């Protein structure tokens, strides 16, 4: 495959040489047409999200009335209150936060170590180890579900945080992302550090890592979002409502006989708030993260 220079930083910033100089009426018409078409597309994409936020401020009866609600109502806090008090949703949010936070830190650490080893060292078995880890990207996750369930059963770990955390700590994409980024670290930098008597551990954490803030940010967003949204494995490993994470709790809410959609959509809205905040704040890194994982050989 063709090797592509790793795009860094602002990917969709205006291309290098804007053709502003010949700006006539025809160009203006083109600008208007293109921007209008893209804006209509964007409106279609955002409409479901807008409606979700609106619907979360209404009662179930209002949501299922004709015509549909299109403006904010006043039932949001009541929806949220009943969700927390009657359905124990607060517990699910706490579980999710704790699991996602611990996961982000520990998996980030583990992936960084491995990525560094793969990028900056030559050692026996390197090719095989890297190939095996990357092959897991092609093998469906479903293959591991039954054995993982049995492992957790043997250890008596169903319904525990470690059951959710452990199996995905070695996150192949994270290892790949860190390796790709660390390939760019000059060997001379490491050699200079060693000559100065810097130990290997301090070399990584004191010298190499501080230069890769964007990659670390991208990795953190990835890990947090992946864990926050993870569904299938928590669904299997968490059997009691007290241990549910947000997605499992939401799916359970939808499954019960008389679903209160005001509640359900309030919960859904709450569930995307952390992800949306992380995305808005670190959008640039997130896009860069997708790219450094994607557009290379």
């Amino acid at each position, binding site marked *: 495959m063709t090797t592509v220079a790793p795009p860094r930083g602002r990917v969709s910033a205006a291309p290098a*040489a804007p053709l502003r100089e010949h700006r006539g009426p025809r160009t203006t018409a083109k600008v208007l047409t293109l921007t209008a078409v893209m804006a209509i597309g*964007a409106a279609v*994409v955002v409409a479901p999200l807008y409606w979700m936020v609106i619907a979360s401020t209404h009662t179930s009866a209002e949501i299922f009335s004709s015509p549909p609600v299109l403006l904010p109502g006043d039932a949001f806090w009541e929806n949220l209150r009943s969700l927390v008090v009657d359905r124990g949703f607060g517990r699910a949010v706490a579980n999710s936060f704790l699991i996602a936070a611990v996961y982000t830190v520990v998996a980030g650490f583990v992936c960084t170590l491995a990525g560094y080893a793969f990028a900056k060292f030559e050692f026996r078995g390197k090719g095989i180890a890297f190939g095996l880890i990357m092959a897991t990207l092609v093998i469906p*996750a*479903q293959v591991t*579900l039954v054995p993982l369930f049995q*492992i957790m059963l043997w250890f008596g770990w169903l319904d525990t945080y470690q059951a959710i955390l452990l199996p995905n700590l070695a996150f192949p994409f994270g290892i790949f992302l860190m390796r790709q980024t660390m390939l760019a670290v000059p060997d001379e930098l490491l050699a200079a550090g060693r000559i100065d008597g810097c130990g290997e551990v301090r070399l990584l954490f004191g010298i190499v890592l501080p230069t890769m803030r964007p990659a670390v940010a991208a990795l953190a967003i990835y890990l947090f979002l992946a864990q926050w949204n993870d569904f299938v494995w928590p669904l299997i490993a968490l059997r009691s409502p007290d241990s549910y994470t947000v997605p499992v709790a939401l799916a359970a809410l939808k499954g019960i006989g008389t679903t209160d959609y005001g509640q359900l*959509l309030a919960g859904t809205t709450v569930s995307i708030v952390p992800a949306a905040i992380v995305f808005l704040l670190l959008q640039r890194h997130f896009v860069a993260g997708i790219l450094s994982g994607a*557009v290379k050989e």
Partner: protein
Amino acid sequence: MSTATLSVRRRTIVTKNTAPYVFLAPVLILFVAFKLYPYVYSFWLSLTRSVGGRQEFAGAENYVRLLQDPLFFKALGNTALVLLIQVPIMLALAVALAVGFNSTLLRWRGTLRLAFFLPIVMGLVAYGILFSTLLNTQYGLVNWVLGGVGIEPVPWLGDPMWARVSIILALTWHYTGYNAVIYLAQLQTVPRELYEAASTDGAGPWRRFVHITLPGLRPAILLTVVLSTIGTLQLFDEPYVLTNGGPDNATLTIGMYLYQNGFRYFDFGYASTIAYALALLVALISFAQFRLLGRRS
């Protein structure tokens, strides 16, 4: 021996030679315990049958059963349908989006980009719930909008054909932005001079697209085709939350069928067989795609 370890007598065990192994150790241990072992165990399970709660060797029994199982082939057909219809539509839209974003004529770039990429952060359960409300036949927003232009209510989730359309719509909404990011990055590596030279030679927009843009996108297209194929073959979350595989198994996917056998009927042997069939399928198709699309690049 490195100069560092010679000149400074370190008590630490992390030297330049041991460092890669130390750094890789956590990932390798996790990998063996939670990936490699499950792969091997899952394969053994696929050769067993469940007798009174215990697994007993059964040879190729499960594989023979799989080849005669009409539901498995139904799930395979449903998955193939999504693969052949949804993936091309989504990737074509993503190319259009990337071309739009790559144009110097576009205004409101930042806002539009945010709108198109926001669905990426939404958890699968959350958007499953959202779409099931939006697509409600009687009260859903989508049918209300369609009613506004005189279209009869569509039984989105209640009719086999429309249920498939619903899954396709939801998937396209969710993943188009992600693919567009990858294409956009690739497009920005195509030299602008190529377009300028083609314009000078009298090539119109369509010819420039066919002869410059598409060939330039080739590596990214290969990547997204392979990624989308893997994702589609493993499709689980959307049918689980939106349609529960129904109506009449019209949206039953291989991932869902595996889940049902393993965790609803607790037939671990058969579930593992389905998982291995799926893994084989993913490997074969990805390989074929690399051979077909990867040539000449």
